[in-house]
C-alpha cells in the first residue's frame, strides 16, 4: 500500500470521526447533564440535512442552507424538549427509549410527508470544491478537509463554552448537584432546554455537512446514531473530551479497518474469500474495540467525575 493511500484513508477516518464527534458531543452532554437517553438525536441530524438541502436548493446558497440547518435543528430540539423530553428526565431509561423511539417515527414520517420519499441532493459549495495535493501525490477533496476543520473549531468552541463561560459552569454544576444549583437561583429547566437545543444544533450541523457527501434521505440518522452511541460509551458517558477522542478513534479504526483487514486476511486466504471475511471482520472491528476498551476501562476512557 502506498503512503498516499494510507494518508487519504487516515484523513477519511478523521473526517468520519469529526462528524461522529458532532453527533456524540450533544448525545453525551444530554446524557451526562440530564441523564436522558435520546434516540431521536439521529432525527435532528436528518432535520439539519433536509433543512440545508431544501434551503440550498431554494436559494442557491449552501451557506444559507448551513445557517438554516443550525436554526432548524436547534428549534426542533427546543420544541421537542419543551413538549416531550422534559417530561422524561425523571423517568427510567426504558420510558426514555420508548418515547424517543416514537419521536424517530414521527420525525421520519413527518419528513417523508414534507419532502416525499425521494432523496435530496446537496452540492458542495463552489468555495470548497476541488482538491489539494497530499504528500505522496494523491489528490484530496477540499470539502472533506473543511469538515475536519469545522469539527476542530466546534471542539474548541465547546471547550471554551463548557470550560470558561458561566453557562458552562452552570451545566457542570447541574451535573453534580441539580437541586443545589436551582436553590442558588439558576433556572435549571431553561438551562436544560438550552443544552438540548445546543446538542440538536450540532447534530444538525453534522447532517448538513454530510448531506453534500451522501444523499439526504429519511432514515439517514439512525446508522450514525448507533456509531455515536459507541463513541460515547468508549469515551466515557458525559465527557466531551471522551466524545472527541472516542469519535476520532472510531472514525479512524473503522475506515482503516475496512481498508486493511481484507488485505490482512488475504495473506492467508483466496482473494474472494479474503474480501468477504475481511469485510465482515472490518464491520465488527469498532464493536470489538469497544468491548476491549470496556473490559479494561468499564466506564470509558474519560469517566465523568461524578456518578
Amino acid at each position, binding site marked *: 500500500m502506498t503512503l498516499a493511500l494510507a494518508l487519504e484513508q487516515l484523513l477519511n477516518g478523521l473526517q468520519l470521526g469529526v462528524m461522529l464527534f458532532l453527533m456524540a458531543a450533544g448525545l453525551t452532554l444530554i446524557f451526562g447533564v440530564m441523564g436522558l437517553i435520546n434516540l431521536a438525536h439521529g432525527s435532528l441530524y436528518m432535520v439539519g440535512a433536509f433543512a440545508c438541502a431544501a434551503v440550498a436548493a431554494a436559494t442557491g446558497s449552501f451557506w444559507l442552507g448551513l445557517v438554516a440547518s443550525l436554526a432548524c435543528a436547534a428549534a426542533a430540539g427546543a420544541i421537542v424538549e419543551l413538549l416531550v423530553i422534559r417530561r422524561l428526565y425523571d423517568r427510567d431509561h426504558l420510558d426514555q427509549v420508548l418515547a424517543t423511539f416514537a419521536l424517530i417515527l414521527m420525525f421520519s414520517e413527518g419528513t417523508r410527508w414534507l419532502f416525499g420519499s425521494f432523496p435530496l441532493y446537496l452540492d458542495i459549495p463552489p468555495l470548497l470544491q476541488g482538491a489539494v495535493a497530499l504528500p505522496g501525490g494523491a489528490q484530496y477533496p477540499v470539502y472533506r478537509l473543511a469538515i475536519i476543520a469545522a469539527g476542530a473549531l466546534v471542539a474548541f468552541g465547546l471547550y471554551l463554552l463548557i470550560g470558561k463561560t458561566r453557562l458552562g*459552569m*452552570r451545566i457542570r454544576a447541574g*451535573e*453534580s448537584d441539580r437541586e443545589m444549583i*436551582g436553590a442558588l437561583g439558576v433556572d435549571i429547566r431553561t438551562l436544560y432546554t438550552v443544552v438540548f437545543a445546543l446538542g440538536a444544533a450540532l447534530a444538525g450541523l453534522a447532517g448538513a455537512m454530510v448531506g453534500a457527501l451522501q444523499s439526504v434521505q429519511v432514515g439517514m440518522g439512525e446508522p450514525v446514531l448507533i456509531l455515536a452511541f459507541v463513541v460515547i460509551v468508549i469515551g466515557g458517558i458525559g465527557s466531551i473530551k471522551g466524545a472527541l477522542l472516542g469519535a476520532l478513534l472510531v472514525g479512524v479504526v473503522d475506515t482503516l479497518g475496512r481498508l486493511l483487514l481484507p488485505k490482512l486476511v488475504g495473506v492467508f486466504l483466496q482473494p474472494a474469500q479474503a474480501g468477504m471475511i475481511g469485510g465482515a471482520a472490518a464491520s465488527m472491528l469498532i464493536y470489538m474495540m469497544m468491548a476491549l476498551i470496556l473490559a479494561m476501562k468499564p466506564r470509558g476512557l474519560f469517566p465523568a*467525575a461524578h456518578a
Partner: protein
Amino acid sequence: MLLDVSKIEASYGASQALFGVDLAVEEGQAVALMGRNGMGKTTTIRAICNLNPPRAGSVRLAGTDLKGKPSHRVAKLGIGLVPEGRRCFPNLTVHENLIAAARPGAWSLERVNDLFPRLAERHAQMARSLSGGEQQMLAIGRALMTNPRLLILDEATEGLAPVIRQDIWAAIRKLKAEGLSILVVDKTLSELLPVADRCVILENGRSAWHGTPAELSADLQDRYLGV
C-alpha cells in the same frame, strides 16, 4: 417582616415531618432555629426554599407569598442557602463555585475573599480538594455571591475543627454586624446564643417555643435541647 413562616406542614412522600411550624425573621435580625436531631430544622429550611414545598401553611418573604414558586425563583427573591452538608460543586473550582450563580449587588468576589482569605488562596483549586472547613467557607461565600436579603445557614460548623469553627462564627458575626438578616441552625449554644436576636425551638415537627436568648433558661434548654 422579612420572612414570615406560618403553620407550615411538610412531608417526605407519605411520612409527614412538619406539623405546624411558625417562625419570623425581622429585617437585620439573626434568628436561631433550634431543636434536637430529627425535629425538623432542615425540613423547615427546605420547605422555606420550596425544595420540599410545604403542603399547608404559608411562607412569605418581604410580603411575597412563595407558594408555588420554584426554588430558583425563591432564591432570586432573596434567599441565600448554605445547606446542611455544604454541597459545594466538587467538579468546579473555588472561583467557579463562587461565580456560577452569582447575582450583582453589594457582595462581590473581592468582599468574599476579604471575608475568607483562605478561599482567595485556593481560587483555582477544585472544590473537591478543599478541607471541610474550606468547603464550608465556600458554601457561605457562594450564597453571599447571590446577594441575598436573608442568609440561611444549616449546621454551618458541624464536624469542623475548633479553630475553623471560630473563623466561621467570626464571619457570621461580621455578617450580622453589617445588617444581613440570618436564619441559623447550630448545635453550639455558647456561640449561637450571643449572635441570635430570637430563638425558635422545634419539637417533633412543631414550633414549641419562641423567645429571646435571655429567656431561654437552663430548664428550657434541658427540656428541648438536652440529649
